[in-house]
């Protein structure tokens, strides 16, 4: 099939002089940045370069209209529903259900049209009123095309009912037909006319209908020949029309708004049992006769003609060109694909076209701050490139609020997009760290399962504690649960906080054991040991003996371990020497406290053993 023809759309950017300058640009997720520049660096600008403007450019502005939003939302529901019931669509009811889906889409279009129409009427200034009205026209055209496609491709009306459907179609879209049919019905043989066409259930066969119709025609002819209507030229003209006299019909051109109205009327009177495959002959000649060589067909005419020719691909192609939004072609093509029509027409890339259009539509939705959520479902139903397209789009969604971030993460987690989850959480964790919101940073690191970053944030917490003497975000640390296991440093943070809690609850024995185990199990980083030992001091100075002799020996061992390594790490720095002074004092205090505690512990344990 031919590729999408049509000239590229030209967008003019005011303020840029394309004759003298060039443009530099960059893509954004939903917009484009453009700026006037000059690439040929060798040329010196004649005049002082003025400060240019930066341009933000985006497409598919329709996405932003709040009225159309309803269209997008409701059609999304119909789309998802259709994908889900696909397996259940079997047998005879399949066609009926697909027709129902088609009618649902059309009613959504009509509802949107109605609302737009109300806005047009209520518009305060003529310019916006005109804008709304033009929108109504475009929606109307879309419904017109969809309706015809429904009759020809989905309903697949056979000869007989076909004309009835076409009559309804025209009646729905052209109001003038009401007046014309009123005229016709006012003719000599209204009863026969009515009974002929208003047969519910259509119990007659095509042949019977044809026979009846022939009789009726012959009667009309006879009337004409006999000059029954000679006295009234209008009635005569009417009779000619009923006999399908095209010239007579064309004389009433003002009443016929367009060629397809002409076509259906013509068929009504000359070929009411027209077969679908013959439609396009009459359509083409009707178009030619109606235009009469004065004007050429317009895009809408070409689309309808392609439909009459049962050239589905041409219909889709022409619609893609005529409409700037992918909404229409994406949904219609998807529905036709479910009718198994695309494959029948062209096996090679039938299914790819559906996906291509859906991907285009969904990508457009992602530019919008809330409609992107609809886009997710469309990507889900694109088996080839849907997932990877979703991955690329979803990680670009700006995470302005926590709520939005959680929404995005939930979507990724539901689809096992683990890399996107990790990346998004990392971005949020990094942002939190830079803003010194350590609790937030920690919870994002945990969600990202990022052990390295969790270690980093835990270190920050510990550093904060050392500087300020208290913890921030106690709630979070207290309730880490199994997440504590993510990284050693995080485990230490959690346990260290637990130590403080135990101490606060005066459970000194437990606190002491925990403190010791933090050092002996190597969970505590060596850089923190001094702090831990200093934390042990109040426990050593208590009236009752808390650390057992064994435990005291362990503490002493830790202290010696720590101090023996010190000379290697000593800096010739002056500040460091000063710190060493403080350090030395601390160490001495600890040694004293430990020795005293050891003595008391030995005595106590000795006495107990003794008794």
């Amino acid at each position: 099939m031919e590729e999408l023809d049509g000239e590229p759309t030209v967008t003019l950017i005011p303020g840029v002089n394309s004759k003298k300058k060039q443009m530099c640009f960059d893509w954004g997720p939903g917009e484009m940045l453009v700026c006037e520049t000059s690439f040929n660096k060798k040329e010196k600008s004649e005049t002082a370069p003025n400060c240019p403007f930066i341009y933000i450019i985006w497409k598919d502005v329709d996405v932003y209209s709040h009225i159309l939003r309803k269209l997008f939302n409701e059609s999304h529901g119909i789309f998802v529903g259709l994908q889900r019931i696909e397996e259940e669509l079997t047998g005879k009811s399949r066609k009926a259900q697909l027709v129902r889906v088609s009618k649902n889409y059309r009613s959504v279009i009509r509802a949107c049209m109605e609302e737009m129409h109300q806005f047009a009427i209520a518009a305060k200034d003529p310019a916006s009123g005109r804008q709304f009205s033009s929108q109504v026209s475009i929606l109307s055209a879309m419904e017109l095309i969809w309706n015809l496609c429904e009759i020809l491709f989905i309903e697949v009306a056979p000869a007989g009912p076909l004309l009835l459907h076409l009559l309804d179609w025209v009646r729905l879209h052209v109001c003038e037909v009401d007046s014309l049919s009123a005229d016709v019905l006012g003719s000599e043989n209204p009863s026969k006319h009515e009974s002929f066409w208003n047969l519910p259930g259509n119990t007659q066969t095509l042949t019977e209908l044809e026979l009846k119709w022939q009789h009726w025609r012959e009667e009309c002819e006879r009337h004409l020949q006999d000059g029954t209507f000679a006295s009234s030229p209008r009635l005569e003209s009417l009779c000619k029309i009923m006999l399908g006299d095209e010239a007579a019909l064309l004389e009433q051109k003002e009443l016929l708004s367009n060629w397809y109205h002409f076509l259906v009327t013509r068929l009504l009177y000359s070929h009411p049992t027209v077969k679908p495959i013959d439609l396009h002959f009459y359509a083409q000649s009707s178009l030619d006769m109606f235009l009469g060589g004065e004007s050429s067909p317009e895009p809408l005419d070409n689309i309808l003609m392609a439909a009459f020719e049962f050239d589905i691909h041409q219909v889709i192609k022409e619609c893609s060109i005529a409409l700037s939004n992918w909404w229409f072609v994406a949904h219609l093509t998807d529905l036709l694909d479910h009718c198994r029509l695309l494959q029948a027409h062209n096996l090679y890339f039938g299914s790819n076209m559906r996906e291509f259009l859906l991907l285009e539509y969904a990508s457009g939705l992602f530019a919008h701050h809330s409609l992107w959520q609809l886009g997710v479902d469309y990507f889900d139903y694109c088996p080839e490139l849907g997932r990877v397209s979703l991955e690329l789009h979803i990680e670009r969604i700006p995470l302005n609020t926590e709520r939005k971030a959680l929404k995005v993460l939930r979507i990724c987690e539901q689809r096992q997009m683990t890399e996107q989850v990790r990346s998004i959480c990392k971005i949020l964790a990094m942002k939190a760290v830079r803003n010194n919101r350590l609790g937030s940073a920690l919870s994002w690191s945990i969600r990202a399962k990022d052990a390295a970053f969790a270690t980093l944030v835990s270190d920050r917490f510990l550093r904060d504690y050392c500087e300020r003497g208290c913890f921030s975000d106690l709630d979070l640390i207290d309730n880490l649960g199994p997440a504590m296991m993510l990284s050693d440093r995080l485990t230490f943070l959690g346990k260290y906080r637990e130590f403080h809690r135990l101490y606060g609850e005066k459970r000194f024995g437990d606190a002491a054991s925990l403190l010791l185990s933090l050092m002996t199990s190597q969970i505590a980083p060596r850089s923190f040991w001094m702090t831990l030992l200093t934390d042990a001091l109040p426990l050593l100075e208590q009236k009752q003996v808390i650390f057992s002799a064994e435990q005291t020996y362990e503490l002493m061992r830790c202290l010696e371990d720590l101090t023996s390594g010190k000379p290697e790490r000593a800096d010739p720095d002056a500040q460091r020497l000063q710190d060493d002074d403080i350090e030395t004092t601390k160490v001495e205090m600890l040694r004293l406290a430990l020795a005293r505690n050891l003595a008391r512990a030995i005595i106590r344990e000795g006495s107990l053993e003794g008794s």
Partner: protein
Amino acid sequence: MFVARSIAADHKDLIHDVSFDFHGRRMATCSSDQSVKVWDKSESGDWHCTASWKTHSGSVWRVTWAHPEFGQVLASCSFDRTAAVWEEIVGESNDKLRGQSHWVKRTTLVDSRTSVTDVKFAPKHMGLMLATCSADGVVRIYEAPDVMNLSQWSLQHEISCKLSCSCISWNPSSSRAHSPMIAVGSDDSSPNAMAKVQIFEYNENTRKYAKAETLMTVTDPVHDIAFAPNLGRSFHILAIATKDVRIFTLKPVRKELTSSGGPTKFEIHIVAQFDNHNSQVWRVSWNITGTVLASSGDDGCVRLWKANYMDNWKCTGILKGNGSPVSGSSQQGNSNPSLGSTTPSLQNSLNGSSASRKHS
């Protein structure tokens, strides 16, 4: 259909590069006035300049954002033979109220002896890494091993391209099937200069970048180069801005057929070539899904190229200036809620014929 809105740039000299951040909510501009400006998009959609500072002692050619996983980090490169890395510091609450933020220089990369023409961060899965290229024909790859300490960068690789380099592009593919790859373009106009586009690939064994390919069919000066985002394809797509727009595919030849341990060999095909820009094409850049290529050229236009589902590339849009002055008020686009096309005939087909619709 596109809509444009303008923002007064306020640079005192020519702007050379504009760059969106990852989420499209911040942008950076750099200029011959030696400064970089950062702009933020507010909730209401307006853009405000939140930082403006002198970055170099010469024209600033390019500015680029690191992935937000590394925080708020920018890199710039300049005629003054240096590239620099900048980090945003969360400021005092006063600054926040005034809507200003501060950027500090974390490092200056001074290894080049000539103008540094391009700087690009590597894909995030490679860590915090960037590449620069210079008129001295050397591509330099730097890494910051500790992402929390951006003042420590080490020069990991120096790749000699022998020709004056104008542009570089990292292959964004994070697939384990592909080794890190970088494409380099040269705008050297001397007649002996042959290899205008070179592709280097990282070798896990030698831990070095080795030349994998030279695109011999590109013989004119190259101004820009861009790998397309990879949607799970086994092959790579590369766009080149030279005297025309060219799009190449590079299909890795199966490893068993090549000598083991060497760089991958590629089957190179040209899938599109467009000379609509009339003379030189200066920039090429892919959208985020790699489905549309934008190019900018001597004709003063930006053109958009897209492949249909049959893989035929066509121009689908043109952005051009009409030279008319911008309306006084900035930040105003013509927001036009429309479902239709720029061709009015579709609605005329209905309007001209039927009267205003009656709904049944």
